């Protein structure tokens, strides 16, 4: 409070300093309450994931044979020992959800890193090379986008065999074309601009042009896409897990938890409810954040 007023006092009235780019970004971002809420949720989920071993009361795969399908603590028959109840083999759902957060974020990080890295490089190559290379890369993207992403991921998993690793590879491949297209479009726009022409004339190498001159100028849409990519990755991995093609039991992945909970729909609502709620909240948070970032980073939408 005091610091702020000092700065206010120090600044000469009537001539506000132009805000730094980061400050400007934060200014716009903070106006969007949804985005801030999303960010807060993501921070909480990340903390839960990092500190999973400390927070969760039990191991996610430990089975308590005398507490099978115990309801959450506020229901009759529940106890605080298992705050969200237990599943069909007596595992603590709360512990599984927390460890599931770790898996889901890991899936998000790996999928986004993989697809972003490969997608951006392919996009840069397509944008710079043009001609046959460009056509080949873009056709490849068209082929991959011709199929619904989930179906393509299923096909890839059918080839590689069902496991969490393979599910991540499949999803990375499936979302990759989005980054490629985005990068290529941005590169082509940037290449025609004066500053690029200028650095070309001054003899900058292709690598330098790609990574130092052009790439930094297309980061904004990529950041937005990457944030939204987290939610897609988490959702698709959960869908694959649900279909039995992703993480295999007893891994506490949210989607595969739901798959094994299906048979208890009529008897134990809590086994079904909580993993799905966790997916929804996390995915929603990333979507809110992505929307906020888009608004804050995209000058066209700034009002």
């Amino acid at each position, binding site marked *: 409070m005091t610091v702020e007023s000092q700065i206010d006092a120090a600044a000469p009235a009537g001539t506000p300093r132009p805000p730094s780019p980061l400050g400007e970004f934060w200014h716009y971002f903070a106006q969007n309450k*949804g985005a801030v809420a999303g960010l807060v949720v993501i921070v909480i989920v990340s903390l839960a994931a990092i500190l999973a071993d400390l927070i969760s009361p039990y191991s996610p795969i430990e089975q308590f044979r005398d507490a099978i399908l115990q309801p959450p603590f506020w229901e009759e028959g529940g106890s605080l020992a298992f705050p969200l109840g237990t599943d069909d083999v007596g595992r603590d759902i709360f512990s599984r959800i927390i460890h599931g957060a770790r898996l889901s974020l890991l899936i998000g990080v790996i999928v986004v890193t993989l697809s972003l890295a490969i997608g951006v490089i392919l996009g840069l190559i397509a944008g710079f090379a043009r001609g046959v290379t460009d056509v080949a890369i873009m*056709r*490849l993207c*068209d*082929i991959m986008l*011709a*199929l*619904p*992403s*989930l*179906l393509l991921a*299923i*096909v890839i*998993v*059918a*080839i590689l*065999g069902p496991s969490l690793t393979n599910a991540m590879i499949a999803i990375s491949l499936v979302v990759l074309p989005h980054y490629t297209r985005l990068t290529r479009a941005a590169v082509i726009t940037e290449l025609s601009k004066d500053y690029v022409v200028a650095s070309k004339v001054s003899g900058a190498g292709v690598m330098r042009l790609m990574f130092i001159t052009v790439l930094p100028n297309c980061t904004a849409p990529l950041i937005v896409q990457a944030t939204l990519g987290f*939610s897609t990755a988490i*959702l698709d991995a*959960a*869908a694959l897990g*649900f*279909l*039995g*093609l992703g993480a295999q039991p007893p891994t506490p992945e949210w*989607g595969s938890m*739901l798959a094994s*909970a*299906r048979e208890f*729909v*009529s008897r134990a*609502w809590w086994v*079904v*409810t909580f*993993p*799905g*709620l966790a*997916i*929804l909240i996390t*995915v*929603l948070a990333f*979507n*809110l954040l992505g*929307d906020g970032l888009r608004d804050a980073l995209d000058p066209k939408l700034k009002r």
Partner: protein
Amino acid sequence: MFRFILTRFSLIIPTFIGVTLLTFALIRLVPGDPVELMAGERGISPERHAELRAAMGLDKPLMVQYGTYIADVVRGDLGQSVVTRTPVLDEFLTLFPATIELSVCAILFAMIIGLPLGIIAAVKRGSVFDHSLMGISLTGYSMPIFWWALLLILLFSVNLGWTPVSGRISVMYWVEPVTGFLLIDSLLSDEAGAFSSALSHLILPAIVLGTVPLAVIARMTRSSMLEVLGEDYIRTARAKGLAPFRVIAQHALRNALIPVVTVIGLQVGVLFAGAILTETIFAWPGIGKWLIESVSRRDYPVLQGGVLLVAAVIMLVNLLVDLTYGILNPRIRHGGH
């Protein structure tokens, strides 16, 4: 116009060839020996093994195999299911109406609810209604629909007993397939009560499948409406003192709906991905469930042919959307690239 159609059509051909390469590779990349799988615990003699491999055409060079495959595809022969031994195309055609019926109902549900909500939100921009609608629609967009389905089953089928848990119609009715669309067939049949049974089986799956498109349509309608409402001619119309309702209904809506229609067309892929999950949960005998089961049964010809057909359908629908859009909006048609 004709040239436009031709250009667009020629663009999807290389994509289609690419998809055939993908599906061709699929059956050869899967691990394990398909012949050995057929034999199971009993085991199989080396001679019979070679015989079956030859019968499946697996003993020829890859290029020859691909050539044969393409020739077959062009003739409409997509191979035979190793489980049922019926042609993949026949199975697809038997099950496809169920998926269409479900998808059409889902998209209708999404439009009937999504369009008005989006329009109202745009008109009342910044209101509590607008904010909460946008919040809800983003939630819908983030929804893991397989969980959503379970929740609805939990509430409406298990607790309230209003809707059946799975299937397309009560097994007590026997409806002869005429069109393949049960809602129509049940009306054509003389079984009293069959239609309401078919309808009650359809409601939950259609809601589940329609949820994500609903969210997308509502958001898209809103933003497209907002854009149009900001245009000069609307301001002029308003300034001229036209009733607000007429401004919206007559002037704004028509123009705002063009991009929305495109978005609806582009939901085909989303619908299909959703159909895989929805059909699995509701035991809906359609294409999505068929494909998923082909994976678990290792029925690779079905997966191969099914993926190709689904890709073809989606490409065709996208082409149609593209063409419609081109007709609605001449600038695109003549603008070339």
